[in-house]
């Protein structure tokens, strides 16, 4: 037979290709007929096969009426650039598998919120406006006897949008009085949002407020504002610089990747000021540095103060010096011997605040982390719970470095709309270097919060394995709890088996028992423990006897409601020889801020119980370890309300 194939074409495909005549066979008489019949059969079956194949291939994809789609059976061949439910793993096991958003627990989902439950959620001594949405803290400062807080605010609803600058003042960082808005989006350069900014107090007392404006064509620019009247302690009125914006996105920087200017610090020669602004190039987070002599004209310096690949957009950068030897804070311009610099970023990607300690070289305009493995964005977090967009300021009044953090809701947005508000600020925290570990900072609630303490009780107990001990507190919604735990030495020595791989977020919480943990306190619990929030330590003895202590806040059973986050937050915490394990927990209705080892690790939780509220909220001590006995001592203060309300301006 001929060996060349006939040319293929669509039309010709189905047509019969005649077999070129070949040499005539001369064997049996029946044979000449068989090849034709076989060929016919082959062609016929091929035709059938082809038709079948075409029928399958020709299926139209899902109809445009999307409601008809049964999406769960759709082709699922994606390889996510960024995983959805698990943020990319960041350094040492630091809440890496925290689910960013609410989950609805399976099973009985029929549940109704009552007004009593929802109104209980408002806090008594944390800063929050009377209603509506709040996010980032802005421009905190101290001026003429008053602490000022500004904040991102939506006048119109309980979700983010239409951002203005809210304003409040306080004598003591705890008792706040609301003032009129400091700035509203009334210029072409900030009409789409008066976004986050920071204050710089000049040596002559002038205050320069730099903030991000979102322009009428949605470009992010930096703008200058200053008080209309510096002699006004309340700083009621603000003036926007007539030649705003003062900085626009430089070449190579996206119009939507340029926001949150920092407080300024002096350049090495002392004649200029520097600020940094976060951005990104592809997925590398970067920090741009600008220099200015007068806060009106700015020059972009070469290079970046720092950058870390894979961390995405850097929001709300904070950059400040910290003393290695003193317990006071430092002015933002301080540098020299015995001083390190903290670099902090809010990662857009996983909604957490990360920091690292390092060294700042002002001549080279570079900051270098002490430990590149724990670089900013991949290492330590300020807080292992819900905490974002934080910002420090130097409190020249009491010589402290004070940290503010935005705590958003972790319930379904429908509930925020129902209750008419969303978000609180953390209690301001002092920040100092941890001289004992040398590798982290310590955060601690400002001492002024202790002025809210009223009645107290103390209690000591030896907690045997598997014990739960109620504490006689009759109203457990507003408390300051200090608890200390000491493991029975003998059990600790005897336990030799290794217990590796513990990680708060994947641990399953306080129900899962180990030999040396979990043990700690339980807050916002009803007396039957149907709803409860354990805050605990879990000691894991690794191979070769190396001990790891974990500090966790377990929300898994914090509420029977299905539409709130239920996550176990936490991380490892360094514990030095001879140290007891300590927890301080500020309970204030739907927010709990817990500090381990004097502030070495902090976890902020939002809790939304349905029965463990009001007079029904209880506190317990517990030890769910299987081997260790724990000596526990606890002191609890009731906390009064901070009575946060509008400033009585008519009485001025």
């Amino acid at each position: 037979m001929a060996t060349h194939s006939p040319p293929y074409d669509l039309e010709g495909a189905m047509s019969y290709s005649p077999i070129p005549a070949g040499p005539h066979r001369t064997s049996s008489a029946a044979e000449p007929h068989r090849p034709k019949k076989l060929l016919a059969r082959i062609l016929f079956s091929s035709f059938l096969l082809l038709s079948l194949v075409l029928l399958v291939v020709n299926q139209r994809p899902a109809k445009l009426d999307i409601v008809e789609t049964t999406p769960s059976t759709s082709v699922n061949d994606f390889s996510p650039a960024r995983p959805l439910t698990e943020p990319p793993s960041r350094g040492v096991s630091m809440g890496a598998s925290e689910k960013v958003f609410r989950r609805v627990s399976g099973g009985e989902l029929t549940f109704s919120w009552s007004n009593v439950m929802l109104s209980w959620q408002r806090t008594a001594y944390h800063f929050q406006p009377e209603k509506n949405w709040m996010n980032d803290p802005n421009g905190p400062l101290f001026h003429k006897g008053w602490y000022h807080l500004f904040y991102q605010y939506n006048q119109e609803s309980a979700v983010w949008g239409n951002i203005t600058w809210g304003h409040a003042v306080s004598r003591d960082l705890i008792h706040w009085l609301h003032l009129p808005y400091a700035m509203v989006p009334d210029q072409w350069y900030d009409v789409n949002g008066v976004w986050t900014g920071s204050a710089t107090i000049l040596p002559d007392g002038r205050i320069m407020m730099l903030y991000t404006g979102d322009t009428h064509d949605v470009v992010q620019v930096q703008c200058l504002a200053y008080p209309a009247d510096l002699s006004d302690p309340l700083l009621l009125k603000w003036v926007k610089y007539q030649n705003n914006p003062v900085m626009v996105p430089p070449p190579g920087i996206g119009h939507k990747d340029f926001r949150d200017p920092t407080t300024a610090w002096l350049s090495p020669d002392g004649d200029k000021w520097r600020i940094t602004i976060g951005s990104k190039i592809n997925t590398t987070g970067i920090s741009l540095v600008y220099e200015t002599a007068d806060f009106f004209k700015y020059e972009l310096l070469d290079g970046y103060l720092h950058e870390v690949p894979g961390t995405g957009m850097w929001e709300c950068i904070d950059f400040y010096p910290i003393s290695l030897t003193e317990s006071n804070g430092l002015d933002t311009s301080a540098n020299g011997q015995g001083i390190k610099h903290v670099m902090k970023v809010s990662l857009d990607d996983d909604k957490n605040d990360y920091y690292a300690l390092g060294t700042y070289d002002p001549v080279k305009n570079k900051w270098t982390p002490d430990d590149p493995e724990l670089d900013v964005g991949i290492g330590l977090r300020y807080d292992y719970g819900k905490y974002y967009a934080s910002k420090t300021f130097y409190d020249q009044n009491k010589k402290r470095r004070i940290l503010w953090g935005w705590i958003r809701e972790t319930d379904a947005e429908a509930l925020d709309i129902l209750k008419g508000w969303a978000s609180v600020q953390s209690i301001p925290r002092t920040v100092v270097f941890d001289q004992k570990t040398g590798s982290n900072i310590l955060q601690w609630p400002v001492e002024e919060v202790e002025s809210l303490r009223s009645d107290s009780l103390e209690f000591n107990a030896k907690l045997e394995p598997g014990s739960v001990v109620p504490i006689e507190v009759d109203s457990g919604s507003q408390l300051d709890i200090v608890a200390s735990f000491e493991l029975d030495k003998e059990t600790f020595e005897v336990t030799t088996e290794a217990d590796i791989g513990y990680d708060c977020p994947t641990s399953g919480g306080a129900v899962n028992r180990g030999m040396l943990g979990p043990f700690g306190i339980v807050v916002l619990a009803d007396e039957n423990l149907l709803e409860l929030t354990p805050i605990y330590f879990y000691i894991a003895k690794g191979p070769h006897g190396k001990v790891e202590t974990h500090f966790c806040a377990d929300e898994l059973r914090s509420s029977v409601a299905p539409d709130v986050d239920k996550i176990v937050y936490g991380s490892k915490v360094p514990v030095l020889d001879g140290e007891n394990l300590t927890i301080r927990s500020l309970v204030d209705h739907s927010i709990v801020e817990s500090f381990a080892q004097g502030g070495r690790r902090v976890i902020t939780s939002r809790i939304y119980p349905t029965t463990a509220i009001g007079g029904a909220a209880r506190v317990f001590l517990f030890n769910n370890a299987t081997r260790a006995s724990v000596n526990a001592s606890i002191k609890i203060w009731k906390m009064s309300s901070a009575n946060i309300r509008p400033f009585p301006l008519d009485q001025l």
Partner: protein
Amino acid sequence: MMKILISVILLIIMVVQTYAESASASQNKDPPLVVSTCKNTPHYRLCLAVLRRSPRSAKADVWELALIAVGAVKTEAERAMDAIKKVRKGGEGKEVAAALKQCEEVYDAVLEGDVQEAEEGLKLGDPKFAENGMADAVVEADSCEGGFAGVGKSPLSRVNSAVHDIAEVARAIIRNLL
């Protein structure tokens, strides 16, 4: 004989291939950005269907694609609201009525809160709020559907499922912007 068989089989393969290509090509060729963006979502086909609906997707950047997806969530949420109203007229029992009321609140939040926040976040250039909004929409849809558990068959399963999945698609698209 073998050669004929082989030729025929090869012919079939060629025909099938050409047809398959033309079948998908006949769906107005998807821009590469649409294809790659959709591959990074949990529902590839659904994503393609959603984006193809808008003529803007041909020249869109990722921000715009995200807005299209958010718009689709809005459309489905509006459908849900309509469906709730229709179902309500049926003289249903107290528990079903309560579940429907919850769904109404839920979809109110999706429209007034989630979609609103997502559109703002994308238009103004702060995408994390857009991600929040779409993630919440998933939860809200589940919350509506879950309200019927143990009460009766949900009359809103299809639309809840649609909102759930399209919101997941939108969220995945938005994550490219963070």
